[in-house]
């Protein structure tokens, strides 16, 4: 199955889900479904998070697993945290604008 893109290849904007389908009966639902926060992150970040969870949140173990130094892995995690905060802030901003 293809991976979900989170960024528009044409303009770089955030993508949302317009149509979903049941794999059992084929029923399709159309609407405006927002991607979960983690799914909005780049694929590399999602893979990093999966590895991080598998490593029980140990940066040392992650560093060994990825053959990188501890600060490199910690800085990468800081980057992802900043992206998550930024995405959350964007979402809050959109909700504020709607109200």
């Amino acid at each position, binding site marked *: 199955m293809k991976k979900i893109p989170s960024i528009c290849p044409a303009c770089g904007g955030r993508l949302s889900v317009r149509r979903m389908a049941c794999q059992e009966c084929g029923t399709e639902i159309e609407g405006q479904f927002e991607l979960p926060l983690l799914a909005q992150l780049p694929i590399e970040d999602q*893979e990093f998070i999966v*590895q991080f969870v598998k490593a029980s949140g140990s940066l040392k173990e992650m560093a060994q697993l*990825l*053959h990188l*130094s501890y*600060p*490199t892995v*910690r*800085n990468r995690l*800081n980057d992802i945290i900043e992206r998550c905060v930024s995405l959350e802030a964007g979402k809050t901003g959109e909700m504020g604008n709607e109200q």
Partner: protein
Amino acid sequence: MTQAEKTSAPATGSAKVWIFNPFAFVAGARALAVGLAVILLAALLCWVTNTHFDGAIDIHPGLSAPLVMFVIEGLTDWLSLSVMLMLAGLTVRRSSYRVVDVFGTQALARWPYIITPVMLLIVPPFRNAFANVADEALKAAKSGALPNMAGSDLVLIVMASVVILCCVIWGVMLMYRAYAMSCDTRGAKSIVSFIVAVIAAEILSKVILHSAFAHLTSGTQAAKP
């Protein structure tokens, strides 16, 4: 390719990364061990070639001195810069950092400095030129006359100085990368805080080394660099 391999950012086989940013792969205690070995080996080579690291980022071929002076120079330069960068990192860091990463990566970042004593060791004309000029300068200082330096010595010194300058630029670049990596600093704040820390470390190391040399040479006739 496993998922773990896919998630790793820089390629471990890239020589460019190893030359310009080895801290992507090595930090902490391992960097500290290698870095300390480099500092001690450099002190030994500096003793043989009369090369002084008489400041946090300084390299100066000079006069002979006891081995312990060269060891003190290497350790003082490393410690003064690491302490200043650690303090600078507190003001601009994005998250908490490990002290061992700061000290370890700074020790490893000094490795290009070893090129100068190695160059002077394997190219005797360079070493002799610096020795001749130092002798002439000493004689001139004692007699009050202008130093009489050979043109060939000056040409050799200019050639060697270009290599030494490249080593300093490479070393300082690695020191900045080590700082940015270990303290997780970014942007203009990172560069400004690094420059301030280097200036402070330069002053601190000069003061410490001056005191150390004064103490060590007080009972001997050994010359200061």
